[in-house]
């Protein structure tokens, strides 16, 4: 007895939808069929707990007139006739992506089966339900949307066989090697025996996941894990960290990358869901700071997202991520107690993510902060070294631009200041007083640095008073103050410093020079707040012979010009783009100085006949 039916849906449309949205390529048809077999076995185990179950994938090569065929057989729960109708009905509702119901066995079976049409024109299912007195059913479906169901009179064991005949152009997906490699790729960690067969050849694809390998412990286990990491990712990792989460039912390994990673480079993790490969590029598995590892994990309690490339983001995922983060943290802490060399190797490479964790986690901060490296005016050192050197008084500038301005001069005075312009550094330093009560942390404004320089003697001050006052007046239109101090190196006539607000204001003025009226006013509206704190300063070096001489002359126009030129020179040395006003000071100044020089030569010439 057989009946002809037509799918109630546009099958083509559903297949297209599946291949566009849910499947990354034709290879997933193997994953889906394998998954169907596994699900069927799991379903049957609920009734027969002792059942081991197995899946056989047999490739039959092309004959003279017939294309290659793949048969996938499981000894799972099987389907009754009404269940076959049910899965077809489920497909019928699948006109929208979100309606695809993968949660129940039957729905999943239907969707998985449909994926076969990506590589095949005709699919035959022979199935017998494990329920008592169930007949064997044959379902024959075609990609044009027709199918036929009949009962066949054979006394087969419960389970399902799916036959796919390669459609023209898809033969490459039916070679024994392809089937074996793809099945291994997706299913090698599955707990029930999976066999791929072709002719007389048979391959059992199962492998023991490294975390289940109970034979090893300690360093040997670590070596074994690292070996696995090398096989899987072709990388010699620095370390292997075991992962475990109760919330997500996760087990796995995190491998520490052998090179510094950037925050933006996403290292996709290899994730298995109930032992079937879900994705090789899952991203949301770990906390954001953990960008220094690449993982292989299996999860039993998480759900896949719609695109099946990662886990679904819910509160269980949040809890899982937290637990996995704790595993990484605990490992680092353990290393700090038991293997300082290995830890230093990791810190040397990955101080950035470790700093990120220290920002978030107070306990970790207290344990690790002294080992983390910082850039200072006296070279790179760990915070522990810095604290010892500076007796717990920490001084830092908040931006790299400020550090650049002062680094040379501060080093010459042996003043040790941290460059906190790197990601996380300022946040870390500001946390210090909470962790260590004796620590004083001071954010240094670059303009304050000059206050540490030597003052002029009273007598010197007296002599240079008019000079300094004039210099101040000259620089006022440039929103810059003048100061006169003694500092090293003597060759340096000036030190120009501008705090971040002042530098910002420079960029505002630069934009205003090119902007139209509307935008000029808008720029004014935006810059009113920072303008209040903006401060630039030109500190003249009284140790420098030129400045010393300049401070003694009384020729006001000459001083005026010289100070302007020193100011512009300082800007140029600091790679500041000149504003129009400064540009004209430069050209006027140059011409004026030439004129002055010429005047002197002519005068001299007059004297000497």
């Amino acid at each position: 007895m057989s009946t002809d039916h037509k799918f109630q849906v546009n099958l083509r449309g559903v297949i297209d939808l599946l291949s566009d949205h849910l499947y990354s390529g034709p290879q997933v048809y193997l994953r889906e069929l394998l998954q169907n077999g596994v699900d069927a076995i799991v379903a049957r185990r609920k009734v027969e707990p002792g059942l081991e179950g197995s899946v056989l994938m047999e490739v039959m090569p092309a004959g003279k007139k017939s294309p290659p065929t793949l048969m996938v057989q499981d000894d799972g729960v099987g389907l009754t006739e009404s269940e076959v109708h049910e899965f077809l009905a489920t497909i019928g509702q699948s006109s929208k992506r979100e309606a695809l119901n993968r949660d129940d066995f039957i729905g999943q079976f239907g969707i998985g089966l449909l994926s076969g049409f990506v590589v095949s024109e005709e699919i035959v299912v022979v199935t017998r339900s494990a329920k008592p007195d169930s007949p064997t059913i044959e379902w024959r479906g075609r990609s044009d949307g027709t199918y036929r169901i009949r009962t066949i009179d054979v006394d087969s064991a419960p389970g399902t066989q799916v036959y796919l005949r390669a459609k023209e152009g898809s033969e490459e997906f039916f070679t024994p090697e392809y089937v074996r490699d793809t099945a291994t790729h997706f299913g090698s960690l599955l707990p029930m025996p999976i066999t791929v067969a072709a002719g007389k050849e048979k391959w059992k694809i199962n492998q023991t996941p490294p975390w289940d390998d109970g034979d090893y412990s300690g360093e040997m286990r670590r070596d074994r894990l690292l070996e696995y990491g090398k096989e899987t990712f072709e990388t010699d990792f620095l370390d292997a960290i075991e992962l475990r989460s109760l919330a997500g039912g996760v087990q796995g390994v995190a491998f520490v990358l052998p090179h510094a990673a950037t925050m933006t480079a996403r290292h996709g993790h290899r994730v298995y869901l109930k032992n079937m490969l879900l994705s090789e590029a899952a991203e949301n598995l770990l906390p954001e700071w953990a960008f220094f590892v690449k993982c292989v994990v299996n999860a039993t309690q998480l759900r896949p997202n719609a695109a099946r490339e990662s886990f679904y983001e819910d509160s269980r995922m949040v809890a899982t991520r937290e637990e996995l983060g704790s595993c990484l943290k605990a490992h680092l802490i353990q290393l700090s107690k038991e293997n300082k060399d290995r830890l230093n190797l990791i810190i040397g490479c990955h101080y950035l993510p470790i700093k990120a964790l220290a920002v978030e986690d107070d306990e970790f901060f207290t344990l690790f902060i002294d080992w983390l490296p910082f850039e200072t005016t006296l070279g790179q050192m760990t915070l522990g070294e810095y604290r010892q050197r500076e007796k717990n008084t920490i001084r830092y500038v908040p931006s790299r631009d400020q550090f650049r301005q002062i680094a040379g001069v501060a080093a010459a005075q042996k003043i040790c200041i941290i460059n906190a312009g790197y990601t996380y550094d300022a946040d870390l330093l500001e946390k210090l007083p909470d962790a260590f009560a004796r620590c004083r942390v001071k954010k240094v404004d670059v303009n304050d640095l000059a206050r540490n320089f030597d003052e002029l003697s009273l007598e010197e001050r007296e002599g240079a008073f008019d000079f300094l006052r004039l210099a101040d007046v000259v620089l006022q239109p440039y929103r810059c103050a003048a100061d006169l101090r003694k500092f090293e190196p003597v060759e340096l006539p000036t030190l120009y410093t501008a705090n971040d607000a002042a530098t910002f204001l420079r960029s505002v003025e630069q934009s205003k020079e090119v902007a139209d009226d509307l935008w000029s006013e808008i720029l004014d509206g935006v810059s009113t707040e920072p303008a209040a704190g903006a401060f630039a300063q030109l500190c003249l070096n009284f140790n420098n012979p030129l400045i010393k001489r300049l401070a003694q002359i009384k020729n006001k126009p000459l001083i005026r010009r010289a100070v302007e030129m020193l100011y512009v020179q300082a800007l140029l040395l600091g790679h500041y783009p000149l504003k129009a006003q400064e540009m004209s000071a430069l050209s006027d100044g140059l011409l004026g100085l030439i004129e002055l020089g010429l005047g002197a030569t002519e005068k001299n010439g007059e004297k000497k006949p």
Partner: protein
Amino acid sequence: MSREQLGKLQFEAWGLEASPTKVAILEQAVQLADSLADLEEGYSLRQELIEAATFGGVDDRALVAFAWCLAQSDKDPDRFPEEALLWKYKWTLAGITDYPGIPLEKIRAMEDDFENRLKRNGYGLRALYKLRMDNANDTGFLREGTEYEAKWRKARRDGMVDCRACELDAEVSSLVGSGEYAVAIKAAKPIMSGRIGCHTVPQRTFADIIIAELSLDRLDKAREAFETGYPQVAGNPDFLSTVGWHLCYLTRALDVPRGLRLIERHLPWACQTNNPSERMGFYSRVGTFFERLAGERPKPRKVRIPNTLSIHNNEDRYAPADLAAWFHAEAGKIAARFDARNGNNFTSWDLADTKALALGLERPGYAE
């Protein structure tokens, strides 16, 4: 030498997520390019800077760089095509009401300017209507906002409109704004289930969910939104206002340890930002947290307050009532500037409304 430095800075910036650090590095690179008089490089670095600043929570930096680029494009459109700037123009306009120093007529003039540029590049006005709607709503002209909302919904989509996730997020905000909380939560489903999303969604959407759930007195649901949503925004100052809404939940739930932790972590952002609206919003929510604390547990306690704030003291010990008064007063001063600019009392009302929500009190009404 400088070329080499420039390359180094660029490479370094490339490896960073949008953040103030990335912006600082790009600013240095821009400065170098300008000092080398390399216009092309200065232009392309500023493009990167605008993006990093927009999504790194320093939008004033973005605006300054954008003004420069726009002027270069106007001067030499063949070299620096205008069309490539339109998307960034949107970002600039989207935050412009946050600066009380910019008068309303200038905001309108900017919108008109953007309209002209859209038209002459062959775009429809859907993107503009959304900006006009947001700007009207942010400045208390709610009727005008509703009018633009209708226009926005009607206008066709084109290459200049926000992505679907952002548009849906805007719709959710609009529903929350009009008090349709249950509808808003339902509308947000595709976002919350992870089906659609983008760079800033769902992160921002959690704010609306918290407002809606707190308004419906569903503290457990608000807690879920906090627990899932807060970790997603805790690392980026661009989400300071969203962080503020998470603080509202903690205030209402009287979750003191988490509230203090959140404040200590994010208050420095609020102090450092040049964006008055962001600072005001966060100060006000901090004030409300301490107000609740003052009512329930008034004893002085240790709190880490940035030393740039005038209320800071060296013992780090404060009476919650003092902190509440100080932060509310500071927020109030900024709100007064917004109200003066807008010619209404919308911003003050908005702060009062948020405060009532966080304290579980009756919400004040707003009459335009």
